């Protein structure tokens, strides 16, 4: 199957993206990436601890992976822009996942600040992937601003509650002419497959993999589920419509 996901200038085969946070041991990341053929991996940017310089996460990310730095820690558009610029200066490409969170209770994204940051970063030549609550109007604004994809949440970060926002994500898939990547809240491979069957372009999951008893196998399970969902979508499930195609036409008498 030559089914590639195009984001910016990159062509991606494996539509399961994973994060590198919450792992009990970062050293399993290379195995996890290799065994599943994962291509896109997210990272965060933090201050170096001068008292005990830790190992850098980049050591564990195999060459050839596309690095997707996030702006986690940003509480407004300005901070997100600042973090994005710093991330790019690390010399690992110009992809950026905008993540602006002011809410420490649910960790829900601030769509308004996210949209502002997206607009600025697109102008600076970033490949922008904003993480948002699924809202059609915001997604349209982001599309007009020139982002590369839209990443709506399935449920609040780290909850493993699945595709709670299904109806809203469906609307984004139907209405936005960009890859829709479901990011956050996906807890099971079946939920990832569900998102892909609907026509999502990719799924990003971190907690569900990192906190599994066997993260390497769980990454593989997700990768396969995403692939299965994608195949199902391409095989004629077609875009899910809000109404069934009736077997008997109502307007046949007109022809």
């Amino acid at each position: 199957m030559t089914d590639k996901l195009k984001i910016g200038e990159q062509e991606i085969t494996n539509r399961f993206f994973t994060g590198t946070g919450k792992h009990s041991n970062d050293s399993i990341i290379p195995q996890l990436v290799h065994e599943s053929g994962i291509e896109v991996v997210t990272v965060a940017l933090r201050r170096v601890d001068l008292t005990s310089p830790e190992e850098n996460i980049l050591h564990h990310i195999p060459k050839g992976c596309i690095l997707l730095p996030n702006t986690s820690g940003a509480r407004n558009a300005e901070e997100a822009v600042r973090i994005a610029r710093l991330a790019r200066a690390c010399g690992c490409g110009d992809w950026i996942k905008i993540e602006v969170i002011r809410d420490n209770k649910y960790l829900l994204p601030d769509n308004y600040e996210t949209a502002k940051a997206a607009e600025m970063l697109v102008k600076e030549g970033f490949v922008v992937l904003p993480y948002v609550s699924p809202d059609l109007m915001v997604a349209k604004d982001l599309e007009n601003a020139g982002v590369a994809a839209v990443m709506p949440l399935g449920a609040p970060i780290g909850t493993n509650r699945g595709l709670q926002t299904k109806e809203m994500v469906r609307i984004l898939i139907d209405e936005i002419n960009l890859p829709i990547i479901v990011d956050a809240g996906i807890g099971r491979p079946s939920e990832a497959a569900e998102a892909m069957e609907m026509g999502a372009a990719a799924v990003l999951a971190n907690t569900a993999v990192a906190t599994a008893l066997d993260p390497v196998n769980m990454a593989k399970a997700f990768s396969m589920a995403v692939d299965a969902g994608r195949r199902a979508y391409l095989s004629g499930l077609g875009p899910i419509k809000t109404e069934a195609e009736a077997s008997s036409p109502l307007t046949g008498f007109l022809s």
Partner: protein
Amino acid sequence: MKITVNGEQRNLDQKVSLHEFLEQNKINLNVVVVEHNYHILDREKWKDIALKDGDNLEILQFVGGG
């Protein structure tokens, strides 16, 4: 002289370049990014910057994240 590094005050006994400061602190030069007085510095410039009193440094690197 006093400088601020990652939000913390540090005393420097002698004049050093940014590059020297990073080496002294055993920082892996290949993986960090440095913001000097809120400007991101290309790594080629690290040797040219002499740290001075009141400077603000942010030294950052990638960590695990989702």
